[in-house]
């Protein structure tokens, strides 16, 4: 370990940051030591960073999908939310979240080191992993915004998105990825989730469900007779761009999760990711065509995302045909989910739960079915993950089922508590009916999204 001691006179003029009189770096902040020990590090760093950048870009994708599927009068608000959840997420994950999730394990429940990336955590490798993890944490928060769109108060949004990145996501994340108890279940090789169908998507999607339930439907979504009256989004091209960006970003999300370019399995992961998305788009397209006689762009776009979410857990453990099958099922599932929510009068404007929640859970479970026994736990080395269809028996499937149930319950309960607290703190979580009718853009943010275009909301 590179060690360096130095007396620093930390003046911190005017900033009130005079706390660092003595510094010792137990980490390797320059990277010189790390490189010496592992000459292959540069390509891994490049891989992980580039993938992290791609995942970051998914924020734009989410912003565009959600905003496109909602009305112009709330477009500023949705941009603001998708920006600010990443902002709050970055800061919260820097201060606390990362330490809880990836710090040294404490009884299988949470991590305890790396606060503020300070001290020993000032190390090129720690910073690298943080960079990759932070974009995942923010994704979980971002997913929620779709389900609560067009009616949640902005401060409530800030509040819960901090909580997601600070606590809710990191703790379940620790259980699966940080060496926590789920990863040590005595079934299969323990619960696994390659890139986060559960950790990221099902967590986010389930909280979105809770949010949508607690807020109630948007004014006008269901008429007195209980009929669905769809509220059309304001820009299908924006939504489509969002999906293209997400698909693009997902190539960082899944293959990047090896955290190493020396795992050549990355090519298989990329192909599986692509095929599942394609297959799900196709099955959603056909399902809607058969049901309504139209080539439904909105649901086909949701289909793509459903396929991507579903393949996220199994991407490294299955082969191409399985990715196609997982995707085909995902495409149907998302359609059924959207229809089901409408039946239940739960108004989820962009399909956050059917896409991320339902398919996140399906992805987690699918590992227990399709894992083909050629790949291990982020390594080519044994033990390999084998599912039911490849002769692995029920072990892995049971681990996956437990993990899925825990994931849903954890997110649901945490979500419920979070929004309940918010209700008290912010005097209700929903904007007034007047504000909802006029749109939150002008009232909360002072600016309509498209002032040049005459535009009447109804």
């Amino acid at each position, binding site marked *: 370990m590179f060690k360096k001691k130095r007396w620093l006179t930390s003046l911190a003029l005017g900033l009130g940051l005079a706390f660092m009189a003595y510094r010792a770096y137990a980490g390797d902040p320059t990277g010189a030591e790390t490189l010496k020990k592992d000459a292959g590090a540069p390509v891994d760093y490049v891989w992980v960073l580039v993938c992290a950048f791609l995942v970051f870009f998914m924020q734009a994708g989410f912003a565009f999908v959600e905003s496109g599927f909602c009305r112009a009068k709330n477009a500023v608000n949705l941009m603001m939310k998708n920006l600010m959840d990443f902002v709050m997420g970055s800061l919260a994950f820097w201060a606390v979240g990362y330490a809880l999730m990836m710090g040294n394990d404490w009884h299988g429940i949470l991590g305890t080191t790396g606060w503020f990336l300070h001290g020993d955590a000032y190390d090129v490798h720690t910073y690298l992993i943080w960079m990759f993890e932070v974009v995942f944490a923010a994704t979980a928060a971002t997913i929620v915004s779709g389900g609560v769109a067009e009616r949640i108060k902005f401060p409530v949004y800030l509040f819960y998105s901090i909580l997601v990145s600070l606590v809710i996501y990191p703790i379940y994340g620790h259980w699966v990825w940080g060496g926590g108890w789920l990863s040590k279940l005595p079934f299969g090789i323990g619960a696994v989730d390659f890139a986060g169908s559960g950790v990221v998507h099902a967590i986010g999607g389930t909280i979105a469900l809770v949010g949508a339930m607690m807020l109630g439907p948007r004014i006008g979504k269901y008429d007195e007779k209980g009929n669905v009256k769809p509220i059309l989004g304001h820009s299908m091209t924006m939504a489509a761009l969002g999906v293209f960006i997400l698909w693009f970003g997902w190539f960082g999300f899944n293959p990047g999760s090896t955290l190493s370019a020396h795992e050549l399995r990355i090519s298989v992961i990329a192909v599986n990711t692509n095929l599942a998305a394609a297959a799900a788009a196709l099955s959603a397209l056909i399902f809607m065509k058969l049901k309504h006689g139209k080539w439904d762009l909105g649901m086909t776009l949701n289909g793509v995302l459903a396929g991507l979410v579903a393949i996220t857990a199994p991407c490294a453990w299955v082969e191409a045909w399985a990715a196609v099958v997982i995707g085909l099922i995902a495409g149907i599932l998302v359609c059924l989910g959207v229809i089901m929510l409408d039946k239940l009068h739960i108004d989820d404007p962009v399909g956050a739960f059917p896409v991320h929640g339902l398919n996140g859970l399906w992805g987690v479970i699918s590992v227990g079915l399709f894992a083909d026994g050629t790949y291990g736990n982020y390594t080519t080395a044994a033990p390999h993950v084998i599912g039911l269809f490849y002769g692995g028996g029920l072990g892995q499937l049971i681990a996956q089922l437990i993990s899925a149930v825990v994931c849903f319950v954890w997110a649901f309960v945490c979500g419920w508590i979070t929004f309940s607290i918010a209700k008290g703190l912010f005097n209700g979580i929903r904007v007034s009916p007047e504000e909802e009718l006029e749109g939150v853009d*002008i009232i909360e943010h002072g600016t309509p999204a498209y002032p040049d275009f005459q535009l009447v909301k*109804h």
Partner: protein
Amino acid sequence: MKKVEAVIKPFKLDEVKEALVEVGVYGMTITEVRGFGRQKGHTEVYRGAEYTVDFLPKVKIEVVVPEELAGKVVEVISRAARTGKIGDGKIFILPVEEAMRIRTGETGKDAL
């Protein structure tokens, strides 16, 4: 024949339309407009500077009806569009001398 022109709040459009259909109006034309009136625009902020929104979004409904229906139509619109808050809008009645249905060439009341 009369033309009834109503400027209303946009979110009231559906209610007004349904009320009109109930009293036997078969057609109408709507336009997106902006209104200036007693309902003062708000002061908003854009990139750190304040500005006033003078013109608020409204919807204009135009219905041409036989003379005898005009009063009813005004009543129906005013009932459906009313919230009681400032900015609910106005209704005007204008004379119409002739009407024609392009498809058939019918004129007068038959054209409506």
